[in-house]
């Protein structure tokens, strides 16, 4: 290494350092370059498509279980019973935000568009249970019992009408018609009252799995 290279080395080190320091100084003194948002006071506007916490509008939900089936991490659990008017009635609808990965697949498949992403993103809790969103606050067992009662009443009504219309039919068959509903309700109610949302979800998932 000759003297020229030696001096050039020093010159290069000084020059490149000065170049870099000029850039940092420009950022340092220019207040417009500060881009920090003071978070709790200032917030950015989440975009329209922002995938925040899930929200299910249970009034429009048809309990079709599409969301349950498409969820890759099984974070949605849903329970429903067939109501008196042959429509499904939601007994419980829970989303475990601790598991949810906000992929948005459930929102995309929802036929009535009742499941939506909100723009909410702040949720911290000391207990994992608090991360489970319950969209139906009533106890699932009560709803089931009530629906079962309604179904039974409707069935009894129909039965009575039937009996009036066709009095010649044997009674045994009519009893068979009413039985399955009430039995199902009794079987499902206890685990739910015990606070196990998984059991209901798994039970409800069965038709989907059969298809696979």
């Amino acid at each position: 290494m000759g003297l020229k290279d030696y001096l050039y080395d020093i010159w290069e080190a000084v020059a490149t350092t000065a170049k870099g320091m000029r850039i940092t100084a420009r950022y340092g003194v220019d207040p417009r370059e500060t881009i920090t948002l003071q978070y709790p006071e200032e917030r950015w506007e989440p975009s329209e498509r922002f995938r925040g916490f899930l929200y299910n509008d249970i009034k429009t939900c048809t309990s079709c279980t599409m969301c349950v089936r498409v969820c890759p991490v099984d974070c949605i659990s849903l329970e429903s019973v067939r109501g008196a008017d042959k429509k499904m009635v939601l007994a419980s609808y829970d989303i475990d935000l601790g598991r949810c990965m906000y992929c948005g697949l459930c929102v995309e498949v929802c036929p009535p568009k009742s499941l939506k992403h909100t723009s909410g993103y702040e949720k911290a809790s000391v207990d994992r249970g608090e991360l489970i969103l319950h969209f139906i606050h009533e106890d699932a067992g009560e709803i089931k019992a009530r629906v079962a009662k309604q179904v039974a009443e409707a069935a009894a009504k129909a039965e009575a009408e039937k009996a009036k219309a066709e009095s010649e039919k044997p009674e045994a068959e009519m009893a068979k018609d009413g039985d399955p509903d009430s039995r199902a309700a009794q079987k499902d109610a206890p685990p739910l009252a015990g606070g196990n949302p998984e059991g209901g979800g798994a039970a409800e998932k069965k038709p989907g799995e059969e298809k696979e």
Partner: protein
Amino acid sequence: MKARAEALPTQEMLINMGPQHPSTHGVLRVILRTDGEVVVNARPDVGYLHRALEKIGERVTYAQYMPFTDRLDYLAAMNCNAAWAWTVEKLAGIEVPERAEYIRVIVCELNRIASHLIAFGSFTADMGAFTPFLYAIRERERINDLFEDICGNRLTYNYVRIGGVSADLPDRFLEKTKEFLDYFAPKVPEYNNLISYNKIFVHRLANVAAVTPEDAVGYGLTGPNLRGSGVPFDLRKNEPYSVYPEFDFDVCVGTGERGTLGDCFDRYMVRINEMKESVRIVRQAIEQIPEGPVMAKVPRMFKPPVGEVYFRAENPRGETGIYLISDGTVNPYRLKIRAPSFVTMGIFEKITKGLMIADVVAVIGSFDIILPEIDR
């Protein structure tokens, strides 16, 4: 002198670098055997982040696997999304609308910029300069804003779908992207002035851990790590997929401008230059993007035909290959992912011999590995 050295025998030191170490980019563990500061052997130990992503692929449906590809290389989730979509489309022979392909290319290239920004930023932070890291994050934040507009998430996008993309571009997206490109293009020369050609930085990187072109090919390096060794191999050019043939861009290769060919500095410069090329590609894509649908007709209960397929895409970290066997059901029969970072770790032990501890950090940074991809 020599006699005295023999009289005072020294011991090698065994140091555990990681899995909790600030510059192993996650949970990589390197078992260092050193002679003072000089590394005798550095054996990488991977597997701390294993989540059985390939096995998960066998029990979820094709569409359900899309969010998991986000977790493959979380700094380039769009590229992984798209790679999965292209693989399944290749298997099932789905014709994707052209607009969807253009959108995919735009988001992939934007994500490549974001990923290279993180590579650049974390690399300089490893070298002791923290300011460029913050600048890189600042620019990346704007890309994240764009992605938030387009798909609603900022890290795990899950935007690409088998047969297209989940939603068309939002209003003003292309204008916003152009604004970003205009903002970003002058930043690259600024980075070069700030740090790339800084004497100290160049000295830290030049002639460190040079990988010869033969070794690079032999060890299966891909992406910027391969091109850093002067091998002009880029899947977007050499095995074009999607609409990449429509675009005019250069393949950046290392030239050994400040030292030997294939050293850390070359790998670093390839990334810097690729950001410029990505800007070019996105500009062209914005010019050429056609109108039309963004989603092909794909049945809800999607069942590809029986068969197997291998598809590889040029991701920011190299070649992500997906090997897929279908048995005609809704779930893949077998899924294998060739992760570029994992393959790259193969040469790590060889090239770190005789370097100093500080150089090991430089090597990890210059390879730009990402741990979730290594362990899958």
